[in-house]
């Protein structure tokens, strides 16, 4: 085994060295010209894609050569089990990736930590094995691709999607990575047999291959259902409208969720006002709808807030957050980056790179920053005072509440959203007591809150329904009028019905309840409804569809002869629905044995 490994290493070694130097050069350039550890979300995605693609290409190239040049017989006809042969080759690939990816990263991180003023968190070091592991996982996927030699094999790479989730602290990020790597490794091992044209045999091998393929096909099949609805139903009834699905809100009746969902802020408020019972509603609606910014009597200030769920930073998370964590000091002279280890901002001179110091005191949570130095962490609102080297706390939300986004300027003061209420401060700032408007529903269900300034009052519109598509939460429109005295009147409080039919909204469940549950579990989707909330009609349709796909799959599997595989596929056809049928179409061997 060692001889094989060394042979492969010699084969790949020179090329590996070249790429390692190239990588080192790129990293050095990035470190020199920008902040290596605070890249923009685009750079993060590009970087992940590059490492993943690099690993994938290495796997494909290394093994495709053995397939193509008829070297397969040479490779496998030896007194060594195929599994060990594969491990030897993959170990060589792993070493190459360590040289090309891990070593330059480690080197640059060490140099920056030791020889520059930049502060390096522990989690930056954790990036080294993570990126190497990610490339390795894609590499093993590439091996599998090369061995199976068909495009549909690439679908199993869906196993690696959970790795790219940013909001995971510390070493937990390795859990989906290791699981994905092990699964793909198992797949590659089952494919690494003398007879390459045979499909994997046995229950374990079939399931290993079929399940990820079906999970990858699942959203495609569900999408087809939506397309059917959009093209067939909407266009049939209302004329041709192109291929967008839920965007054509004027097809849906007034009072439905979809009708309101795609309006811009001003139209939404007007729509909400018209829906209400109060007689003042329509009048206000005219004012709001017709007004342009700055015109007397019109709405001259309007602002929208939405809870930034999922974009909240996680302490010690490896992959960088949507918002980035850096502030620019006055005149752009200093740049302040937040350290998760010390929970403080560390500043460096943008021209010379020299360290400037830390902002005191440390924060309890990782903040969400806004460009002007205001930030939100946990339940408190802060303002960075660069001159004093401090972070001042401006305001603390009532007990237990978390702030869901940065403060937004409005009408001389600011508006901010917490998970319990919307707060408005006046021009004296947050030191006085701001007005609190409690949220009429769960904050995760809040699509947006719109605050509009009218000449004599303010209108606050709450639009709930973010998680209403699959009946997990109800949709609702609430409009409150806040008088200058502080009195609150409800103009509108209207529950919204679902406009699209249940079978479209529960399309994932329709295609396969099992796969939908799996996807909901893996992504921890808050939109997942309880199963008893799903209408009986949908259950019946799902059962019908399951039976249809079971018969289709059984019919196709029968052609290969009865046996374990046949019953397994029939079962998968029932429980995994049409994706199972499509996966069987894609995965069965080309030439019959």
């Amino acid at each position, binding site marked *: 085994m*060692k*001889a*094989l490994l060394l*042979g492969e290493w*010699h*084969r790949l070694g020179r090329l590996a060295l070249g790429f390692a130097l190239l990588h080192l050069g790129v990293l050095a350039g990035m470190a020199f010209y920008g902040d290596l550890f605070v890249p923009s979300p685009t750079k993060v995605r590009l970087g992940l894609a590059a490492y993943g693609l690099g690993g994938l290409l290495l796997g494909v190239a290394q093994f495709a050569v053995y397939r193509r*040049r*008829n*070297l*397969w*017989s*040479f490779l*496998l*006809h*030896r*007194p*060594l*089990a195929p599994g060990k042969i594969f491990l030897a080759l993959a170990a060589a690939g792993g070493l190459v990736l360590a040289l090309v990816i891990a070593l330059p990263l480690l080197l640059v991180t060490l140099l920056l930590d030791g020889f520059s003023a930049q502060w390096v968190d522990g989690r930056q070091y954790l990036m080294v094995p993570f990126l190497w592991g990610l490339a390795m996982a894609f590499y093993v996927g590439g091996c599998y691709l090369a061995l199976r030699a068909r495009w549909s094999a690439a679908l199993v790479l869906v196993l690696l999607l959970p790795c790219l989730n940013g909001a995971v602290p510390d070493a937990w990020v390795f859990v989906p990575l290791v699981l994905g790597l092990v699964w793909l490794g198992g797949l590659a091992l089952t494919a690494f047999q*003398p*007879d*390459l*044209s*045979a499909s994997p045999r046995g229950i374990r091998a079939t399931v290993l291959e079929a399940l990820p393929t079906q999970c990858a096909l699942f959203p495609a099949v569900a999408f087809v259902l939506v397309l059917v609805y959009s093209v067939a139903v909407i266009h049939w009834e209302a004329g041709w409208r192109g291929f967008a699905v839920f965007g054509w809100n004027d097809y849906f009746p007034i009072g439905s969720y979809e009708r309101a969902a795609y309006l811009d802020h001003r139209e939404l408020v007007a729509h909400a006002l018209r829906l209400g019972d109060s007689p003042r509603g329509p009048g206000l609606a005219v004012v709001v709808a017709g007004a342009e910014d700055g015109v007397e009597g019109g709405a001259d200030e309007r602002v929208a807030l939405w809870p930034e769920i999922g974009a909240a930073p996680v302490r010690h998370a490896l992959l960088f957050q949507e918002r980035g964590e850096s502030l620019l000091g006055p005149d752009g002279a200093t740049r302040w980056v937040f350290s998760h280890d010390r929970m403080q901002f560390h500043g460096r001179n943008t021209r010379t790179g020299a360290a400037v110091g830390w902002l005191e005191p440390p924060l309890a949570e990782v903040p969400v920053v806004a460009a002007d130095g205001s930030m939100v962490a946990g339940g408190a609102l802060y303002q960075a005072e660069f001159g004093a080297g401090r972070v001042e706390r401006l305001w603390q939300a009532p007990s237990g509440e978390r702030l869901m986004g940065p403060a937004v300027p409005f009408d001389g003061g600011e508006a901010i959203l917490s998970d319990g209420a919307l707060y408005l401060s006046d021009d004296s700032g947050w030191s006085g007591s701001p007005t609190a408007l409690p949220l009429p529903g769960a904050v995760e269900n809040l699509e947006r809150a719109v605050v509009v300034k009218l000449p004599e009052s303010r209108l606050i519109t709450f639009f709930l329904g973010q998680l209403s598509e699959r009946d997990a939460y109800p949709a609702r429109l609430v409009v409150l009028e806040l008088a200058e005295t502080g009195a609150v009147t409800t103009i509108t409080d209207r529950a919204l019905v679902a406009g699209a039919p249940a079978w479209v909204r529960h399309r994932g469940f329709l295609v396969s309840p099992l796969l939908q549950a799996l996807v909901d579990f893996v992504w921890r989707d808050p939109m997942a409804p309880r199963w008893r909330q799903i209408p009986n009609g949908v259950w019946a349709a799902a059962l019908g569809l399951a039976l249809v796909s079971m018969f289709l799959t059984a019919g196709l599997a029968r052609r290969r002869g009865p046996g374990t595989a046949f019953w397994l596929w029939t079962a998968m056809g029932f429980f995994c629905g049409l994706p199972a049928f499509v996966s069987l179409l894609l995965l069965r061997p080309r*030439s*019959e*044995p």
Partner: protein
Amino acid sequence: MVEVAVAVTGLRRRFGRKEALQELTFEIPAGGVHALVGRNGAGKSTLFRILLGFLAPSAGRSAVLGAPSGALPPQIRGRIGWVTEEHALPPWMAVGTLAALQRAHYPRWREATFREVLAPFAVDSRQAVGGLSRGERAGLSLALALAQGPELLLLDEPTLGLDVVAKHAFLDALLFAGEHQECTVVYASHQMDEVERLADHLWVLKEGRLVSASSPEALWERIGGWLVELPHPPDRARIPGLLQARALEGRWEVIVLDPPEAFPKLLDEVGGTAVEPLSLGFDRAINAFLSVGSTVGGAL
């Protein structure tokens, strides 16, 4: 030491519509040189790949050295040498590295045999395999296989495309490498001159079927040739066992399988005359046997 080197039962293999192997059943006993003879496309390569587990049969089973082909344990693989037609070896490796790789894997490696077999091909150990000529690669491939000390050696048209010098070197190595090893050789070829030199036993494959299994002389003796005069072109109805007919200046050279003693009399009855018997060399006789149904210069 097993008694049966290769055992095949009811083996079939279909590629789309084409039946590459049809109901093959035979056993190759251990020891000796067995020639597997057949035209291109007769199924020889397919058979080898199935025997070594690189292809699954459509039906039937096969076993080599007592182990089933679909699940050959690594130790058994270590006792089988395989030389393919293309002599596929990693082109990026140096000859020396390749030899070291193989040496590390095979416990019964004999370095002396490797050098002895490779010597006539004048290959430098620092050369990359990709830079070798076809003949040199063939020699290297055979040297690697023989140095393993195999119990069973499968060779699939190994001298195809080799020049005369390389061919001679190859055959020398095959026949006389090292000390006498207890080795069963299965040599697939359609080069009859090599088969005539090498074979102890002859296995004939035709369109995926085994049509003869005997010593080479036994089959050869069954085939007779005659120069005849016939009023009509020869066909199998009039001349039973007709293998091949060739027109020659108004007469016909016919080659017949199992001709009766009184062949001239038989010809008389169909209106023909036997002019004289042909003496058939081994290659002509066996090729005629392989090509039943073909004729040059006339209809059959």
